[in-house]
């Protein structure tokens, strides 16, 4: 289909084109909800069955890093919203600036995630043969405070008492942790790719108050990915912090 200006050949008006694109993105997000929904279902059932193992697993996560990442991601939603606003109100120069900020915040998030994954790897918390939920408590490093290690040991002892198969069940938790955060991170990477494309287009000055649908629908996608994290953070990091 040939295209006249911003209007693609299969459409009659720009308004119809915009409605179509927006509706399409909303439907796509509905499929994404069901896609993540499978994982959330498995999480709910297993957490109900093995709450001790999930609690112990959750407490091994680094709350500071996770909290920092949550703030980073919410800020990136703000800058994304500002990019959409700039496009809608015709502030052409601001669009690339806000897009770059969004991209930077997204990259920071992914970088922190790498640090967290590395930590789990060092602590032998990758599901499989060598998985050992007690490894960190038994092999503390110089930077660990003795009081923390003692508390961790005590928590593990209690949990093993309540659930002798803790080491197996904790693997379920970490499978879900890596599955859920991994898929979320993959969505962030896709989002970063989309942002790069938007950046190129916005520097070329393609987005005007009458044509800014790509900024808007990629914004929708970005916010969706943030919202997934808003659910993941409490489910993975916060479930047993009252201990």
């Amino acid at each position, binding site marked *: *289909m040939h295209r006249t200006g911003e209007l693609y*050949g*299969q*459409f*009659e008006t720009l308004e*119809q084109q915009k*409605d*179509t694109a927006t*509706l*399409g993105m909303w*439907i*796509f997000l*509905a*499929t*994404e909800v*069901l*896609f*993540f*929904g*499978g*994982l959330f*279902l*498995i999480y709910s*059932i*297993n957490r109900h*069955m*093995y709450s001790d193992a999930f609690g112990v697993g959750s407490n091994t996560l680094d709350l500071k890093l996770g909290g920092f990442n949550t703030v980073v991601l919410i800020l990136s939603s703000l800058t994304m919203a500002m990019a959409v606003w700039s496009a809608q109100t015709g502030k052409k120069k601001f669009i690339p600036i806000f897009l770059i900020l969004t991209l930077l915040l997204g990259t920071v998030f992914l970088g922190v995630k790498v640090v967290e994954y590395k930590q789990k790897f060092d602590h032998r918390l990758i*599901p*499989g*043969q060598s998985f050992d939920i007690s490894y960190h408590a038994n092999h503390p490093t110089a930077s660990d405070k003795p009081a923390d290690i003692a508390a961790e040991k005590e928590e593990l002892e209690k949990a093993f008492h309540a659930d002798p*198969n803790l080491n*197996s*069940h904790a*693997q*379920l938790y970490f*499978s*879900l942790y*890596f*599955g859920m955060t991994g898929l979320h991170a993959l969505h962030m990477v896709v989002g970063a790719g989309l942002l790069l494309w938007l950046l190129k287009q916005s520097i070329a000055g393609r987005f005007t108050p009458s044509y800014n649908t790509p900024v808007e629908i990629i914004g929708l996608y970005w916010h969706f990915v943030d919202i997934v994290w808003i659910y993941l953070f409490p489910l993975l990091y916060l479930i047993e912090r009252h201990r």
Partner: protein
Amino acid sequence: MSSQTLPITHEMPREHYLNATYGIRSWLLTTDHKRIALLYLASVTFFFFIGGLFATMIRIHLLTPAGFLVTPETYNKLFTMHGVAMIFFFLIPSIPAVLGNFLVPMMIGAKDLAYPKINLLSWYIYLIGGGFVLYSFSTGGLDTGWTFYTPLSSVYSNSAVTPAVIGIFINGFSSILTGLNFIVTIHTMRAPGLTWFRLPLFVWAQYATSIIFILGTPVIAITLLLVGLERMFHLGFFNPALGGDPILFQHLFWFYSHPAVYIMILPAMGVVSEIIPTFARKPIFGYTFIAGSSIAIAVIGFVVWAHHMFLTGESVYAALAFSLLSYLVAIPSAVKVFNWTATLYKGSVSYDTPMLYALGFIGLFLIGGLTGLFLACLGLDIHIHDTYFVIAHFHYIMVGGAVMGYVGGLHFWWPKITGKLYPEFLARIAAMVLFVGFNLTFFPQFILGYLGMPRRYHMYPPEFQVLNVMSTAGASILALGYLLPMIYLTWSMRYGKVAGPNPWPATGLEWQTTSPPPTENFDVTPVVDWEPYDFDHRPDLGLTAGAGELAPSHGDD
């Protein structure tokens, strides 16, 4: 047949979508929904052959009680690969991606789908997914059953499960994008005057199917992805060794795979709803009920999945609820069948080839649907669970229903797709060969199942041999019934008589343009000011000129 009584001889339009551009690039990079439909036609036919090849080997193997073609391990692979090829790569994309792609924009008077490039992308995704699955088939095969039950698929199977689940995962996005494209197109691209209740029923059926595509497919995608992760990285989601629940896999699997059956049958019902009024020459009876029942089937279809799991030890209350809900699907299905029959009543019925397929569909779907009620019945299901009764039941729905609808639809719209007519007499013979072959193949399996022959076994007690030989004999007739149309339809593309814009004639918008249509479908955007299937007020169809008899509308009789 009315087109023979018309004295007019038609000529092919000078320029149409098939000859607008030439060369392999113009096909592989096309964004024209009609060309993409033909790309899908070629690729689903390819997978139909692969699946058919495995089916042939299964039927030959079962000629003798001890099984005479392959080892037990190979037999497991044969029925698995038959199921995977046929379900994920033929049945699910068949009507939506071939006929739906071709027809939905034309039926609503649009120039193309809302996202032509995404439409092409979904074909490539299908090919990549198909490539992974073929890789699995050719490097060790697949022996888990098409259902991929864990922990067999995730831990124990030694066959090439990983590439297969990756392939089906990837292919899922092809379905999702097609469904998304259809829903958006139907919402935003309708021609002026084409209100929701003037839409052809085929479009309603595609809409209902697309709902399942977008809400069901992501669930199978994530589920099979997790099976792949269990296999590749030893993560645990369904692994009982870690405390995971393999039954949970079955829930998630059937949450998609039961509605997937409606992905197959709903579009076929849409095809039948187009064919019946055309060849009864009267408006369809109960338009709104047929349209609404499509949506109802899609919605109820999402809450019946656990009837596949009555024998897993699920709670008796869950089983009761799922049994009751499964019975409910019979209501919208029966609404359709009764409305089609009421449309035939006092119609000027002509038995053209598409009509033979539609009538065949009604009969076979009736048997398939009613035996489905046997399986929804808790007490009876325990007796016939996992027997050939189940095999016969779902082949009546999937082959007798979905494939009959697909082949019937191909015959109905072939003149529109290619601009040529196929040899009518041969086509009628083929339709009857197909019908007879199908029944001879699968009816004995009802009896076998009721007598207790379990599915997926490579051997059986000698007293079952007569029925098995009958089934194999039927399968060879059925194969002939599929080969015949493939030969004469291909032949007709070059040598067939020129069809003209509206050979039957039918009332839909797609028949208002030339055959084959131009790339942009319509020279001017059509304006719709008539009700659906209204033969009485359509002088442009030429029926009042005495070319064909007109049946009285409902209310006149």
